[in-house]
């Protein structure tokens, strides 16, 4: 996620000061991701340079500098909201590489390696779930952030489960052919 677009989203509600943007950013992410004020001002300067926000400095007598979004800023925000992030090619995931490496190391059980990571992920999920226990303290933005973390970790656990099952089946039917070089070349791995 980019701070730049999060600030544009906050300014789309109306003009705001830097300090106000910092506070609203933190509360809009359930206060899970703090943001320092220096970064707010650096980002505002860049947005102003790019014509996406304007400061009210000239029109206001207040010592605090207010900012508002421009038409170009609104267009940029709308375009960002509707553009899916790049998920087309698989990232180089460290966990995937560890499991693939475990298959080649003599004396190492890939099942055991998978279990070490599975347990760690479930322990992390237990911690995130504890944050949900008290519904009274659980506001909407915080709930969305916690859910996002839980679904992200859950997807990794599911991959480990699938990998575990696939390795078990492969061990009982050792005739599974390795992936052909042509298909492997077509999978462009990016960082």
């Amino acid at each position, binding site marked *: 996620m980019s701070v730049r677009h999060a600030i544009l989203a906050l300014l789309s509600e109306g003009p705001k000061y830097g300090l106000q943007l910092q506070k609203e950013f933190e509360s809009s992410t359930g206060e899970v*991701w703090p943001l320092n004020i220096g970064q707010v001002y650096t980002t505002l300067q860049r947005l102003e340079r790019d014509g996406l926000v304007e400061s009210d400095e000239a029109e206001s007598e207040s010592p605090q500098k207010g900012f508002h979004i421009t038409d170009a800023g609104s267009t940029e925000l709308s375009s960002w909201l509707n553009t899916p992030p790049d998920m087309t090619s698989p990232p180089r995931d460290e966990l995937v590489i560890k499991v693939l490496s475990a298959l080649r190391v003599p004396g190492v059980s890939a099942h055991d390696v998978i279990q070490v990571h599975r347990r760690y992920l479930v322990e992390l999920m237990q911690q995130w*779930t504890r944050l949900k226990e008290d519904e009274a303290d659980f506001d909407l933005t915080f709930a969305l952030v916690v859910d996002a973390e839980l679904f992200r970790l859950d997807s990794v656990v599911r991959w480990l489960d699938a990998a575990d099952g696939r390795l078990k089946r492969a061990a009982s039917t050792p005739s599974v052919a390795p992936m052909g070089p042509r298909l492997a070349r077509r999978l462009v791995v990016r960082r």
Partner: protein
Amino acid sequence: MSFLELRRVSRSYGEGAAEVHAIRDVDLAVECGSLVAVMGPSGSGKSTLLTIAGSLEEPSSGEVAIDGASVQAMSRNDKARLRRRTIGYVFQEFNLLAGLTSVENVALPLELDGLSGKKAQAMGMAALEELGLADRAAHYPDELSGGERQRVSIARAIVGERRLLLADEPSGALDSTNGEAVMRMILTACKRGVAAVVVTHDAQLASWADRVVFLRDGRVVDQTMPPPSPEALLEESSRAGPWR
């Protein structure tokens, strides 16, 4: 003291070359007020473990103790009484009787145990109220959503003095919101002293538990450590470096 204890419990089916070991040498202890999740893939022995813990099936070897008493040493009648009074079961398919309302379904195990209809209904209503389902008391199962049906089946499992709750994939047929509601209800029951075991392949459900036990090929291969305070996550997140 543990309310439920499995000591070196094994269960196998068939003989000789056809023998299949469903679970082997399983040790498991569940305290009053705690929720333990058992995670594992299909065929890992989760459901067998649960049916043995609930005295619905005999182990081939090993011992099961509930509230300090060995289940194997009990007479048939004592075991039946234990199942009627102490243990509540929750299944993926809800298993509610279609011709009975919610409160009648919840009160049924008490009536079968000899309680008067009036008293059983009052206790059934109290269980529904405790779980926030009072407004569904007069509804029949086909008038309830899947999530509500499962919540009624949890009320049935904890009605009266039941102190052990055993749930087999309790939210398998539900979406994530209803699955969460089901786990919250099980936690509510644990907070008033119930010992609960949930078997599931779903990490999001398992993460509601105090402890997660991992089963593979019928054996306990690992378990989670008590998690540190969740606040540590937020501190970690604030150290995650600057935003891009």
